[in-house]
């Protein structure tokens, strides 16, 4: 079998085009967020008291003083119902970027007549397209557009990393990867990682929001990051983060089990504490701890959230550090 160089080059063009569209989408999402922030402040009196000039509304100035409990409770409330043109543009651009991106990934696979995840570059572009795909799928059912900046940002970053650092020529697979388990194991890992990525964004926002709420409650209204006023309250973000992890966790469990079955086929043992296996296991254990923490009395949403962040840090280590720097049987990075 030979590699179709024309298709491989076309795939590269696709990745660059997708990055352009993502950049546009990111700008639009950010604009939407800042617009929402303004709207939220205009409607949430407690906030506008504090920055009358910036909020552009002095209607309620005299009626409240900072520290009232209403303000923080209504974060985001003001935005509901107002049409959000920037957000619509952002979503449309995201769909366009997704189409280009997915096309590029498919072409990459077709060029070598195999699944497009055989080395780090391909893991990165395929993983990123799944993140966008999962995000768009979630958007169909729920208005999570406020998360757009925090999802498309990382996707764009990943693609940048892929083309700048990880790029590898399209080629056939090494024998160890020539198995249908590559399709099963890695694709489920992608979906799980995508959900964890979006969950991570929600959790970061939750913690930021929580600080703002606490600061408000203590009478020290936050001065920066006004776009946060457009986002749901921290409790809502906490639930969103939990649900994403709750879906990702069984998928990650499946990834672990499928990987063990594959390892048994390829190497004769289902578990060998290879660095990649160790980190897949560590991720699993940390998220199990997170699920436990949420169910443990005396653990509030914030402490559990830190575990979720730790879990995602392990996901990043697993992809970026283990693949590149640790030698083991899973050394397919194809870089360096």
């Amino acid at each position, binding site marked *: 079998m030979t590699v179709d160089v024309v298709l491989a080059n076309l795939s590269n063009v696709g990745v660059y085009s997708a990055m352009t569209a993502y950049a546009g989408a990111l700008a639009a999402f950010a604009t939407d967020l800042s617009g929402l922030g303004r709207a939220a402040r205009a409607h949430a009196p407690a906030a506008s008291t504090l920055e009358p000039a910036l909020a552009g509304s002095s209607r309620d100035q005299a009626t409240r003083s900072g520290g009232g409990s209403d303000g923080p409770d209504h974060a985001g409330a003001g935005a509901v119902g107002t049409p959000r043109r920037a957000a619509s543009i952002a979503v449309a651009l995201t769909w366009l970027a997704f189409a280009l991106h997915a096309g590029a990934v498919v072409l990459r696979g077709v060029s070598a007549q195999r699944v497009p995840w055989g080395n780090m570059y391909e893991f990165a572009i395929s993983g990123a397209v799944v993140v966008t795909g999962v995000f768009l799928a979630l958007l169909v059912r729920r208005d999570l557009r406020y998360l757009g900046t925090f999802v498309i940002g990382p996707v764009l970053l990943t693609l940048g990393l892929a083309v700048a650092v990880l790029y590898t020529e399209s080629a056939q697979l*090494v024998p160890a990867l020539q198995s249908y388990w590559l399709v099963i194991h890695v694709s489920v890992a992608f979906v799980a990682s995508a959900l964890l990525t979006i969950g991570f964004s929600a959790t970061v926002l939750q913690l930021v929001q929580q600080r703002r709420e606490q600061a408000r409650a203590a009478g020290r209204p936050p001065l920066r990051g006004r776009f946060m006023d457009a986002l749901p309250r921290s409790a809502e973000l906490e639930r969103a983060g939990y649900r994403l992890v709750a879906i990702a966790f069984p998928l990650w469990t499946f990834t672990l089990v499928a990987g063990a079955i594959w390892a048994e086929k390829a190497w*004769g043992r289902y578990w060998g*504490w290879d660095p990649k296996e160790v980190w897949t296991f560590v991720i699993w254990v940390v998220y199990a701890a997170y699920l436990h923490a949420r169910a443990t009395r005396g653990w509030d949403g914030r402490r559990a959230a830190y575990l979720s962040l730790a879990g995602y840090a392990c996901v990043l280590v697993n992809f970026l550090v283990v693949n590149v720097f640790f030698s083991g049987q899973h050394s397919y990075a194809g870089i360096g």
Partner: protein
Amino acid sequence: MRPRGQSTPSTLPDLGRLGLARYGWRQLTSMRTALFLLLLLAVAAVPGSVLPQRGIDPSVVSQYLDDHTTTGPWLDRLGFFDVYASPWFSAIYLLLFVSLVGCVLPRTKVHLEAVRARPPRTPARLDRLPVHRRAEVDADADALLAGARRVLRSRRYRADRRDDGSVAAERGYLRETGNLVFHLSLVGLLVAVAVGGLFGYRGEILVTVGNGFSNVLANYDSFDPGTEFAAEDLPPFRFTLDSLDVRFETQATGNQFGAPRDFAADLTVFDDADAEPRQEVLRVNEPLAVGPAHVYLSGNGYAPVLTVRDGNGDMALSGPVTFLPRDANYTSLGVVKVADAAPEQIGIQGLLLPTAVVDPERGPISVFPDATDPKLFFTAFVGDLGLDDGVPQSVFRLDTDDMTQLTTDDGDVFSAVIAPGETIDLPDGAGSVTFERLERFAALDVRADPAKNWALVFAVLAMVGLVASLFVPRRRVWVRVQAVAGDGGAPRTVVDVAGLARGDDPGLVDEVENVLSRLQDSADGDAGGAR
């Protein structure tokens, strides 16, 4: 999260009364401890991915110890080169599993009781529950209660009519069942892993193309049995390695050039002494099953076929010698121990390069893994190989303590380069070396794990249990009716529907509203029918 409403019976047994003696046990089996031990387990697993491990690559561990003479021995003493068998790692996971069993068994008992018990009685104040809806309906209270029971049962609730004019219902017992199955399956998995380790074995062999292997202990290059393994457990198979087809990337450039593309070993297998031969192809992801064991293709390399004549001119060695590849281009190292050479034994240290290039800076290196221009670079020693000292030696290491390195007439160290078909005389009439041809060898792993299917069963059970535990909604719904005075003596009833869920349940509000609207519909339907 466990429901916290005042009406909720505690799902944990009240251990408080059992006194101080059980304090420690209670601590160990608390959620908090489980959480702590899980985190500890994650942290403890990390060093094994950073430091080299004996179980994976003992030679790298030795190298590390040589390079780090101060920290190395300490890390070694603390078990850091064998993390997953170290006392501290074992202690953590054993404690975790003790905690798990101590936590899950009482829960199982509670759950079994709950499954048989009636749904919990209706709380006095439904409006205090997380979800509560109220409506007035033109229907008779008694008929509504019957309707409520029907509606809830059709939604797979276990519904129970109470004497206080209410219906109590609960569904989703599968959630807790799944949780218990998940946790208990983890115990099963751990046991299966342990049993596999005790009764299984793993051996490595290097077989040169054209040679064979028969499955007895003595033929293994290395063998690692579980403590309960017995040599009779080895299935009596044998095979010959007919050919080994190897393909490398020649098209793509950059770092993909020379990457392996296909390894296939053709074997003729005899399952036992009387069996008919069968032809098999062994590939990396396609192991060979022979009886309870599996044979895996774990690697390959080159084995130059050499003929060595000694100082007396006699043939002292003839055959393939395996050279271990050191890098992706199969730069391979090996030694030849010519024990039968006389008057003195001969030792050869060699570097085999399948596609040899002499780099001005790095010296001789291989630039492609396939044998397009193979060369053997070697130096030679004469003296005593030390094979009779009774100390076991590695076949890949030359003990040169009692040997002298051959030198040229100028006094330089003798080193030679030789290609297939060539012969080179050693200095001082020590003999000669002929590189007959280049063969390949296959590195094969033979393994058996009698419990691996059990491990799979428990892993699948755990996954099924987990999904049930996370996604089956566990809900309690109560319906209370109260007759009020309607106009014109027509029956009129206030209906309260309230719901409580275990854990995160985004659908609870819909559920309660649905039950209520079904009730209203059925009341309307009844009213319509009576008209």
